[in-house]
């Protein structure tokens, strides 16, 4: 759109706002008395006519929901939020920042990009109000993910959870099984299933050219559960190698679990079964449990009831090491600011509040799909029960949250050697040390 057009539109918008303000909104700007301001919270100064751009990779209907969720904030403070979505976000953001046209705020989907942007010197640390919110509402690990070299920059937006186990409540009830809350109990119950002639675990890592990725998740879940977030994050940057003791130990744990023929039948079939097919045996009890994120619900057989008493439901994959509290693996995005204008700071602050999260969850409607790790969000806000269950663990103040490691590792490993290595591991039962050594050898050198 041309500049003059933008100016014209802004003019029209201002005029409209002014008109509306004249007739309807004196109360809206008067302060906390209006309905909009009640939803937004207190402490915001009214700044009419200001626009704050949030640059994001979110596009389409999802972006419309962001705009809808922030309508109350605009009505209350007069600050318009321009949700600018681009499917080229990750390529465009560095270009815009380098070219001096950085957005006010960017919704960054991974910690690596936050560090990269901070290194340019153009990003600004989070204001005090945001700092207070992160200390009050998020677990420590989230604060760490939004920080670079000890300085806190970016508060999280939404979050998603991978640490789930699918099972069938009907089948569990039929055989008298219960949802385990410790790793030991989970394994003991798996032994019981095996003794009863059942297949305790479903598994499938087939995914065409991406075959192997579900197995990388299994290892990541175990690494964070056994060794904690520090070792986990050092593993991502290869200061902890695959051949080092903690990772080898975790690989052995995975092998005693998903590579155990007692639980899964013929282990090699896991390599040739697609990850979508793996979940199809859950409702009928062909296999009893499957570790997989919530999206796999779409691959359940038609007519399956997903509910705590239905054909399929999830439980939280329990922890192993008591020193690692509520280990959670997943993903999320962060709001990074590129200036400290008053309007930007206000928007940034609002986006770190429970009020914003509640508004955004409501905008998602009954299908859900938007979760916050903000502990200030009451779980009754979620209309989708699966979301409510996931949010409970994400927003647990003691949770140890880590990002998907294979996504954060260099592509040669995370999309390459780890996939092929793990596929080989499950297909041929290759010794753990050989698999680890092969992946380490493929780690790309720093300069290339």
């Amino acid at each position, binding site marked *: 759109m041309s500049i003059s057009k933008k100016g014209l539109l802004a003019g029209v918008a201002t005029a409209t706002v002014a008109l509306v303000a004249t007739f309807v909104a004196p109360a809206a700007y008067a302060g906390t008395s209006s309905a909009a301001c009640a939803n937004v919270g207190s402490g915001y100064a009214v700044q009419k006519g200001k626009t704050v751009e949030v640059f994001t990779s979110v596009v389409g209907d999802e972006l419309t929901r962001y705009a809808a969720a922030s309508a109350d904030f605009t009505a209350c403070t007069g600050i318009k939020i321009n949700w600018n979505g681009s499917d080229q976000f990750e390529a465009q953001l560095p270009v815009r920042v380098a070219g001096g046209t950085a957005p006010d705020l960017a919704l960054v989907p991974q910690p690596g990009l936050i560090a990269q942007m901070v290194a340019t010197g153009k990003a600004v640390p989070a204001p005090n109000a945001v700092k207070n919110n992160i200390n009050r509402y998020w677990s420590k690990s989230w604060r760490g993910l939004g920080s670079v070299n000890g300085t806190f920059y970016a508060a999280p937006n939404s979050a998603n959870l991978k640490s789930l186990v699918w099972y069938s409540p009907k089948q569990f009830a039929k055989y008298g099984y219960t949802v385990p809350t410790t790793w030991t109990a989970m394994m003991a119950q798996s032994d019981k299933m095996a003794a009863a002639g059942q*297949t305790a675990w479903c598994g499938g890592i087939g995914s065409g050219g991406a*075959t*192997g990725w579900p197995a990388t998740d299994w290892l990541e879940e175990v690494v964070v559960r056994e060794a904690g977030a520090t070792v986990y994050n050092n593993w991502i940057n290869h200061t902890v190698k695959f051949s080092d003791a903690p990772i080898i130990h975790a690989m052995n744990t995975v092998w005693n679990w998903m590579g155990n023929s007692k639980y899964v039948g013929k282990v*090699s079939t896991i390599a040739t079964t697609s990850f979508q097919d793996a979940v199809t045996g859950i409702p009928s009890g062909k296999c009893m449990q499957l570790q997989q994120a919530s999206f796999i619900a779409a691959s359940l057989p038609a007519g399956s009831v997903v509910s705590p008493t239905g054909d399929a439901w999830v439980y939280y994959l329990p922890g192993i090491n008591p020193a690692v509290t509520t280990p959670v693996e997943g993903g999320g995005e962060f709001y990074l600011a590129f200036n400290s204008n008053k309007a930007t700071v206000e928007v940034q602050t609002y986006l770190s509040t429970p009020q914003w999260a509640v508004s955004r969850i409501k905008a998602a409607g009954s299908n859900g799909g938007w979760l916050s790790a903000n502990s200030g969000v009451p779980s009754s806000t979620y209309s989708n029960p699966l979301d409510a269950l996931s949010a409970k663990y994400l927003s647990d103040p003691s949770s140890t949250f880590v990002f998907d490691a294979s996504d954060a590792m260099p592509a040669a490993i995370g999309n390459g050697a780890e996939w092929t290595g793990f596929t080989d591991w499950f297909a041929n039962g290759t010794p753990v040390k050989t698999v680890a050594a092969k992946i380490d050898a493929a780690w790309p050198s720093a300069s*290339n």
Partner: protein
Amino acid sequence: MSNFWSDNLPKLGQMVAAIAIFLAVLAVIFFIAGKANGKKQRPIAILVFLGPALLLVVIGLLGPAIRTLILSFKGSASHHWVGFSNYHWLFTDPSERIVLRNTVFWILFTPIITTGLGLLLAVLLDRMRRESVAKSLIFMPMAISFVGASIVWEFVYKYANTNQPQVGLMSSIAKHLGFEPPNWLLTQPLNTFLLMVVFVWSQTGFAMVILSAAIKAVPADVMEASALDGAHGWKLFRGVTFPMVRSTFIVVLATMVVSTLKLFDIVRASTGGNFGTSVLANEMYSETFIRYDAGRGAAMAIVLFLLVIPVLVYNITNLRRERAIS
């Protein structure tokens, strides 16, 4: 809706303007070319007619080829020169050697089986009753893409865990015959040959149709004359029919060799290149676009290119020789 128009109207305008400019440039060139006469006429005509094609070949073929060659001597992010190390890796790394071995298997077996089977069918079906029905049925798989064919064959090769019923066709047949089926796609090197079956199934119809057309083009009097001389069956085929369709056979064979070298879809859709089934083209894609190692991907592209050249050269010399004879 108003957003749609305000967003897209300028783009539409730009498109129309671009086309108008293109046509104007063409008009000017043709006008100048038309004005030229005498000595300049021929070189200008050559330039006008050959120039655009040459330009496109340089931009679309020669440029990328040279760039690929350069990239193959650089590292994964193309920042530093690495000499022949990408090639060294390709020919010494144990898993890459399996890839090269598979590629050789594919070239040795697939084209000859596909073309041979196509020829056999063409001869057997020739002048048979309801020839066209049989030929259409055999030709049909050709209409399915390789990815589609791979998914169809996945149901044939499917292997279920031991405690579950075998729903895959081959596994089920094996079970009924009384032996425990192997996990077909995991069994090396059988799995590579199982993937070749998909290619042969899909491409035999094509070879058959082309060769059948060539057989039909053999003049009837030649056939009758040889029959009068006592040539029948195998003798007729070896002495008369095959020599007459030999050049078509070679063209089909060469086409099959080239498409075998390019083969990527079947491997990617069936096994993703795992379990020792990968071929060069599949690895080239994975290295370049999944593991972001442009150097290794480029080196593979160059090797593929070198492998195609002899086929092309043979094809072209063969065509030239025939032109010289006729």
